[in-house]
Every structure is written in C-alpha cells, then in structure tokens.
C-alpha cells in the first residue's frame, strides 16, 4: 500500500510539473486582455490577431518548407551513413568517417552555428557561393546537424537485424540494388520514418543555428517568436503555443491508436 502510494505520488507530481506550464499558457491564450497575465474574459481575439499577422504566417511557411526539405535530405544521407557503417567494410579512414558522422551529436549548437556562419562568409569571399545568406544556408546547416541523428537511428536498426537474409538473397543471385530496395529498405522503413520525423522536429525547433546562418527573407518561426518574447510577453505567441499543442496532442493520439492496433495485430 505504502509503495503504491509512493508510485502514484511521484507520477502525479512528475506529470503535473511537465504539464502545468503548457496548460497555463493555453489557458491564458483565451484571455481578452492585452496585458497577458490580467484576466479580463474569455475570447478568441488573439487567435484572430495571430492569423492576421503576416510576419508569423510567412515564418511558419518558411519553417515548414526548410524542415521538410532538410528532413528529406538528412534522411537520405543518414541512411547512406547507417548502411555504410554496418554493411561496407572498406571505408577510407573509417575512424574519421565515424568521427564526422557522430560528433555533430555532441557539438553545442552555438559552436555549430558560429562555424557554419564563418564558413559561408569565407566561401562567399573565395568562390562567391553562397551568394547571400538566406533559406539555402539555413537549409544546409539544418541538414548538417540532423544527419547524425538519423544515422544513429538507422545504424542501430541495421546492426540489430539478421544480415543472413541479405546474404541468402545474394547467394540466390539477386542484384545488390534489388536486395537493397526489396529487403533492406522495407526492414528499416520504420526507422527511416522516425528518422525523418526527428530531423523534421529538430529543424522546426532550431533557433540558435538558424539565427547564425539566416539572412534576409529567411526568418524561421523560432526566430520570429524569439524576437517577440525576448523582452516581454506576447498574447499572440500564447495563441500560437495553444495551436501547436493541439497539433502535437492530435499527432500523439493518432500515434497511440496506430501503435495499439499494430500491437493487437
């Protein structure tokens, strides 16, 4: 009984701590007062304002565009790395390759951002590319730091499944290309999807690296939000948080049911 109580108490306190700030923010997004914290009455006023705010809408579109492109490229490169490290024995300077593909995981964002910015400026001086900082430079940076995360996911999946299946197919005379697409790819498909989703979230969430590498016309959503909340509170950002939370919760519920029906099968 005592132990049961301990369990319930730690779970309740833990989850209350995780959810209290988010729920408070959502509650205040319906506050009809310009001063965020003084309650005046229930309204959708800030949601209206949010959808009229062109700066936020534009930033949202840019963020989604960069995140989906970056996730796609990072997934392709990440699959290549995961495959190389588990299936190809002859990699020139293999330890260096491992270093390159894993150390972005432990590199503080601020150092990555700084190094990429200095690189873009120097390469612009030397060969004129990239011609200016903007969406392209943010995209390149996001791909670079997401690749390592995708590679880790793919690598752990590839090293845990039975290599003999591929070897059997090879002995039966299957073309390597076909082996990859018919056997390896379907097996790692769930990992590819979770890798893509992780890369997408990483890009959508990134403020530091994007702040360094952005330029005119490439203000992502976190950059705009940060500039709005840096010095004070913003009721529009409260409304934005509530909408994002709604999406996340819906995605989580969908995931829960898909997962459950998979288990039942």
């Amino acid at each position, binding site marked *: 009984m005592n132990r049961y109580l301990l369990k319930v108490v730690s779970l309740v306190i833990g989850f209350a701590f*995780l959810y209290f700030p988010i729920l408070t*923010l959502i509650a205040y997004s319906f506050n009809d007062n310009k001063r965020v914290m003084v309650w005046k009455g229930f309204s959708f006023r800030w949601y209206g304002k949010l959808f009229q705010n062109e700066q936020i809408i534009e930033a949202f579109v840019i963020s989604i565009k960069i995140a989906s492109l970056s996730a796609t490229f990072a997934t392709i490169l990440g699959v290549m790395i995961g495959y*190389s490290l588990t299936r190809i024995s002859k990699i020139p300077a293999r330890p260096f390759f491992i270093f*390159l593909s894993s150390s972005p995981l432990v590199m503080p964002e601020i150092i990555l951002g700084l190094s990429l910015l*200095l690189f873009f400026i120097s390469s612009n001086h030397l060969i004129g590319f990239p011609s200016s900082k903007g969406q392209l430079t943010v995209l390149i940076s996001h791909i*670079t730091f997401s690749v390592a995360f995708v*590679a880790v996911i793919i690598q752990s999946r590839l090293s845990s499944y039975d290599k003999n299946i591929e070897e059997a197919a090879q002995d039966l005379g299957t073309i390597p290309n076909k082996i990859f697409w018919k056997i390896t790819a379907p097996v790692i498909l769930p990992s590819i999807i979770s890798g893509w989703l992780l890369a997408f979230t990483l890009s959508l969430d990134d403020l530091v690296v994007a702040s360094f590498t952005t330029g005119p016309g490439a203000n992502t959503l976190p950059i705009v939000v940060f500039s709005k909340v840096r010095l004070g509170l913003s009721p529009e950002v409260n409304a934005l948080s509530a909408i994002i939370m709604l999406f*996340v919760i819906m995605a989580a519920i969908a995931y829960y049911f898909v997962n459950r029906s998979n288990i039942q099968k």
Partner: protein
Amino acid sequence: MTLLSAHGKVSPSIFLMNNFLRKQNFWFVFTPYFWLVLFFFIPLALIFKISISVSEWGMPPYRDLLDFSDGNIKINSTLSNYAFIFSDPFYLRSYLNSLSLAFTSTLICLLIGYPIAFYVAKSKESTRNLLLILLIIPFWTSFLLRVYAWKVILQGSGIINAILMKFGIISEPLSMLYNHYTVVLGVVYTYLPFMILPLYGYLVKFDLNLIDASNDLGARPLRTFIRVILPLSLPGIIAGSMLVFIPVVGEFVIPELLGGSDKLYFGKIIWQEFFVNRDWPIASALAMSGIIILVLPIIVFQLMFAKYNFKNE
C-alpha cells in the same frame, strides 16, 4: 581474378554484381563523407584558423594567416586570443558557470526523472502506453515555447504570485524571474524528457523477476535498488545524462529568456563576442577552447564507455 563467390559456387553474374555493388557502395560512402567534410569539418577547421589569427578592422575582421604581399611568406599567427581569454577571469567564470549549470541540472533531472521513468516502466502495459504518450507530448512541443511558458508563469503578475498572494503567504509579488535559479528551473523543465526517455528505454527491458528474486533472497528494498536495479539501468542513466549535459553546456536561449545579469554563460558570451563586439578571433578562440575543454572529454568518455559496453556483452 576469381569468379567464385565466398561460398564456392560459380555465379555467372557475380562479376557484374560486384562491379555494381562497388559503384553503389562508393556513392553510399562518398556522398555523406563529402557533405560532412565540407559542412562540418572544414567549418571547424576554419574556427581554429580564425582563432589563431590577428584581429583587425575590416571585412573579414582578421588578418590572413599567410601574407604574400612582400614577395616572401609571412605567417600572421598568434596565440594571444587564447592567452587573453584564459587570463581574463570573466571568460573563465562563464565556462565554470556553464559547467556547474549543466552539472546541477543533469543531477536534478536524474533525481526527478528516475522515479517517473521507473514507475512508468513498471506499470501495466495499457497504462504504460498511455503514460508514454503523455511523456512524449512535451518532448514534441516546441522547446522555445516551453521556456517562454515559465516566463509567463513567473511574472510579477503571474499565476504563482497570484496564488501565493491569495493565500496570504506573501503580501506583494516576488520577483522570481531573471536569476540563475530560474535558469536551472527552465533547463530542468525543458530537458527532463531527454532524461526520462532513455531511462525508460532501459528500465522497460528490465526483468521484474529480478526484484522478486532479490527480495526472496532477503535483500531489503533499498539494497535491491542499489545492488540490482541501479547497476542494470546504468547505461540508461549515462545516456540520459549525456543528452542533458552536452546541450546545456552551450545553452543560449534559456539564460537569455529567463536569466539575469547575475551569471553569464559560455553560450551567451560567444554570441556577444560575435554579434555585439564583432570580435571574430576571440569568439572563435572561445568556441575552440569550448570544444577542447567541454566536448573532447565527452567524446573520449563515450568511446571508453562504448568499449566497456562491448566487453560486457
């Protein structure tokens, strides 16, 4: 030249296949290799180069390392940037502040996160999946907005102050924002899921019969925890601690939004040197020494730990 496969059977297509395989493998290795050298390694090398350059007015604001102007090569390299940051206690203090922030918050995350992960992992399967989803939701929610939420809550007119005043505990609002305690709170809050999820991953694989076995053999609960559960969840503890410690060392956003001027952190100093003072060589030297002091030990530790894990398997 052999047309025999590894298993000794002759295969007519084997030569063609190997050729194809070699081509495919080449591109699979070459493409990410090239990308990472170009956009990860060269930028890091560039930081190193600028960190040993002499700073000067102009664009770019440093002198070239090699100077060919007089017909003979002159090397303009200096360690003075490093000497400067290590002689000024201001920079040293910011490193120490960042390290102590990372250490404190990792410890607190572990203390809060372990019981949650443990009890979620030990629940019945139906409750467990639901609780897991509840753990993942904050993880997916924007990091920036979760930090901002605390700024809203802790305001002078915020909800905490309102509750405390309503119950007569305080008579006027406390100023809870903009000090290093708020920074720790913000860090613990945003990084807690990073601690819980890997811990959960190890604890859920854990065989509950081991606890019963230990109890049956007469160990008391605390002893069971220390001698059985803790060692078996050690990889999870290390993985979770890494996921919290490493990014927190370079954290810039949380101190900027919730912190005050009482403590300066490594991430913010680099930001200021680069964007405010426009001193590229100093900013690069800071980043470089950050890599050497903070990141290299972690990489070495990880390699050692990977070896230890490998031996134990």
